[in-house]
């Protein structure tokens, strides 16, 4: 490991240690805050470990809640990818489709995913579909926007060269525009994942029986701030892992393109 990398790693570790240290100082040593309002890091760590095997107080272990959240989030997310990316590409590639879809898309774009929750519950009921739909609406916007921007950034000169060599409209799209747009599209895929993860937690705060959002809401009602923080940590860790996986995939797909 070179010196620069080691220094970066050390600084990152130090920031976490400093944060936990200040937290410990305020809660366990100085007791500025009641342990019920903000439990000390050791209590949270103990609860985090216990929660892997203990379904109390919310009826499921941490892994069960995480699996439930992932199931819903990934369902909505994949639908967003399947629909959002082709839609963005088509809008950018075909002006008639753009003119047809854009007014509706511009109208729906500013609506935050969580605002869809009541309507989705009414339409799809309280099961997985309503929450997946909320995730879909949150994740589809970055997919469309980034795909659209990516395609629009295709250089005209590349398209002219292709036309000169007799490439069809179809060939220009698949061999020039989409590969050019790929970095943008993959950025959209990453942003959409973050949006999906935020939306699922919000969706589970209402009308859920399992999931990390449900766990937080349940613990909120019964004064278990340690479990609330455990839920928040789990959300952060899962989000981090998913983003890392996507980064690895992106790097693989973009190898040699940058």
């Amino acid at each position, binding site marked *: 490991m070179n010196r620069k990398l080691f220094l970066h790693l050390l600084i990152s570790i130090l920031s976490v240690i400093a944060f936990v240290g200040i937290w410990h100082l305020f809660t366990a040593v100085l007791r500025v805050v009641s342990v019920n*309002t903000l439990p000390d890091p050791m209590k949270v760590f103990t609860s985090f470990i216990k929660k892997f095997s203990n379904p109390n107080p919310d009826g499921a272990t941490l892994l069960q809640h995480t699996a439930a959240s992932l199931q819903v989030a990934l369902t909505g997310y994949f639908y967003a990818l399947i629909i959002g990316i082709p839609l963005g590409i088509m809008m950018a590639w075909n002006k008639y489709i753009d003119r047809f879809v854009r007014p509706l898309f511009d109208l729906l774009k500013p609506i935050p995913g969580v605002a869809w929750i009541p309507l989705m519950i009414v339409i799809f009921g*309280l099961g997985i579909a309503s929450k997946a739909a909320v995730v879909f609406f949150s994740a589809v916007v970055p997919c469309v926007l980034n795909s659209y921007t990516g395609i629009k950034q295709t250089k005209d000169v590349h398209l002219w060269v292709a036309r000169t060599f007799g490439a069809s409209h179809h060939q220009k799209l698949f061999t020039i525009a989409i590969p050019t747009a790929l970095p943008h599209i993959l950025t959209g895929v990453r942003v959409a994942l973050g949006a999906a993860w935020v939306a699922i937690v919000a969706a589970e705060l209402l009308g859920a029986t399992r999931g990390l959002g449900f766990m937080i809401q349940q613990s909120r009602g019964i004064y278990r701030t340690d479990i609330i923080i455990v839920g928040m940590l789990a959300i952060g860790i899962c989000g981090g892992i998913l983003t890392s996986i996507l980064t690895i995939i992106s790097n693989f797909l973009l190898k040699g393109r940058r």
Partner: protein
Amino acid sequence: MKKRVALSLLLIVALALTSAHLFAGGASETSGPVKIRVGTMPNHIGVPIQYAAEKGLYKEAGLDVEVILFPTGAPINEALSAGKIDLAGSGMASVFALASGDTYWLGDYVKTVAGLGVYVRPDSPVLKEKGKFPGNPNVYGSKETVKGMVILGALGTSDQFEAVAWAQGFGLTGNDFQMLNMDRGPAVQAFKMGEGDAIACGGPPYNYELEAAGFVLAAGLTEVSGMDIADGMLGRKKFIDANTEEVEKFVEITYSVIDELFDSDEMLADYAMGFYNKNGKNYTTEMMKGEIKDKDYIGRKTISSPEYRFGSTMVGMGGFYVTDGKIEPELEKNIFASLRPDFLEKIYGIKITNFTN
């Protein structure tokens, strides 16, 4: 460089000041009487407090009381914890605040005779089973029919307690059914639309709405819990310890409202209906009559009786929740320690016995 250091220090000072303000709960610093911020709900629990505040009874006694209304007991607990309110009139959610060790229970003041319980649809398999609940043959259901149910209701409130107490009677725990967290009004609407297998009802007016829609009470809370269900008054330890005299006056006035005014059903109905309807409910005279039948205010007469045990609901419910894993066993002692009958003992000049499990 110096500029950066100065800017960083300034930022740290600003953050520290903001944090100190937040941790202090944003308490106002004004001269004159201590401001007492009281959280309660626009239902039977809030009636005596709201009445006393509206009629100026607290003010006459030299108290500066601000009443803040919440939809359920769960956010009241959060407001107490954050120091945003000092005292509260609240329901069964209070047990979690008491278990925290940061609050005192000052008095029970309204008892539920009926109206709380789990409702099911007329075609529910639960209704095919009766007599299997130990100690109460009128309760519907069995271990098999309750296990795996989806019950709608608000988490951290009496709704959850109803469902847990029902399940425990069949040897199940709160983890054997799924509680779908919803506010009470939307839960009733969702249940009517076919969502969930059962609904834990938070009392009037929702029980009347459910009964009118043809749903059946499978398990009344008083039957499944086997104890008196009493809502009451609690407050932050720090505030009460620092302002004992003011809190005593507050308790005295609130109980005087209960003692003197709520002997008259007409007066209660008249005031309560106005209070509820002003706060978005749609009470009819019939519903109000039903509520008066289902709720008994606890005043001097009840508290002075030799059978009365202070804090029985909170202690009993704490036991339920410890068994169910919702309250950690080591916190149960906080509930016993939170009982403060001394305010009522002083006000009424009597000796009160605490409830023990």
